[in-house]
């Protein structure tokens, strides 16, 4: 006779977790830690514990939404398994793809921000006016004041929407720019190619 096992219901969330769940549920955008602490009457330690409890509640495929840390705050997000059905229901479509020119311009702004259009053009070697305008229209970058240099050019910076669409909790989550530096071998190859081109064009 097999031993009878009684399944216990999972322990219910504590009051703090329920409160932050309610606030995140009603918030129109990701809610930062400061807002959660002040609205729910929690200190830093209490918030961390409550968030952990809430995250445990929503993990493990038990719900159609998950709790994620994104764009400087916490938000509910549809789980990948349920995305298709939500798209069918809400008619939501994916944001348009970004062209290489847009991604390059965005990368320059993301790493050098706040930065000017001239600096973006200098890095890319081509005028980037159209690209920056398109990025502003898509809400990925925004104007952030004027440079204190001759001409007082407009400064650009990334937005919270940029963090959200690229799955970043904060700007610090961007990989280090140094990671993308060319290796010595790659630099030598580039130099050799340049020299070869120059030789070919020499009269």
């Amino acid at each position, binding site marked *: 006779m097999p031993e009878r096992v009684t399944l216990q219901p999972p322990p219910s969330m504590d009051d703090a977790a329920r409160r932050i769940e309610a606030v995140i549920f009603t918030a129109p955008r990701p809610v930062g830690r400061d807002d959660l602490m002040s609205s729910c009457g929690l200190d830093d330690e209490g918030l961390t514990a409550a968030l952990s409890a809430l995250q445990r509640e929503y993990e493990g495929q038990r719900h159609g939404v998950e709790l994620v840390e994104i764009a400087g705050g916490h938000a509910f997000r549809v789980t990948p398994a349920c995305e298709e059905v939500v798209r069918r229901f809400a008619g939501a479509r994916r944001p348009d793809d970004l062209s290489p020119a847009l991604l390059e311009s965005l990368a320059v702004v993301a790493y050098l921000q706040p930065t000017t259009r001239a600096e973006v053009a200098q890095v890319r*070697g081509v005028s980037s006016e159209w690209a920056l305008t398109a990025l502003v229209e898509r809400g990925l970058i925004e104007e952030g004041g004027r440079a204190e240099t001759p001409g007082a050019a407009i400064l650009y910076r990334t937005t919270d929407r940029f963090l959200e669409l690229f799955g970043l909790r904060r700007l610090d989550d961007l990989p280090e720019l140094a990671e993308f530096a060319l290796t010595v071998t790659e630099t030598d190859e580039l130099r050799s190619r340049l020299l070869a081109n120059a030789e070919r064009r020499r009269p």
Partner: protein
Amino acid sequence: MGERVIGAGPELREVSTTFDDLHFDLDVFDGPFDLLVTLILREEVDLWEVRVSRLIADYVLRLADSDEFDLEATSHFIVLVAALLEMKSRRLLDEGLLDDGLDESDEEEAGEELLVALIRYAQFKAAAQRLGHGYAEHAGRIYRRRPIPQRFLRSGSAGSRLPAFGLVDALVPLLREPPAPDVSHITDLAVSLVQELRRLRGLLGRRGSFTFAAVAPRDRLEKAVTFFALLELHNRGEARLSQVRPFADITVTPVGAAAAARDDVAAAVG
């Protein structure tokens, strides 16, 4: 980089601009036009980043809005804009123009500069590719997007409780043409300053001296017009005004041409 301004023309540096109020608010520059030109010449603002067509469009709009047409300022503007366009055009041909002038050491230096620029670009290009992967993975994720219900907001505006038709009712009276104001209390002046000047000149020519009280109309406003006409005659040196004491009647006597005209009239009549 100074050498790259080949063809900018020394005349461009010598043109003095007088665009005190010509201010441009561009993406790469916010300030007066002459400063923009100076910064371009100093290469502190990249000419490639300045849309000359935008400058021209802004200027033409400004001209259209202005009642005055300053030929000199507009001529200077056209000269400077033409020079900027020439600079841009020549830079397109830099490669060919510079081929003859570059010696081997310059060529090496230019090559190194290009290499540094390409290495930097390659770094950002790789970063962009990584960003692209992140975008492909995360851009389609669906977040809870729901505005906070109005009743949960700390303070709802009074307007948010009004029905939409209430807004229409409030706007309609504002859109109606207001009734013409009642101006019946304003006296319609029978005389103008020009008319009074003409009349007083005639009197000076025919009569010579006269007093203000003798020639002024009865209406107070018209009297004021006559007084202004007398002051104008005095300013122009056509009449002399005198009083024996303050607030006494004003005696008007002809001076210069007016006196001569009176003498002519007297001679003709005599």
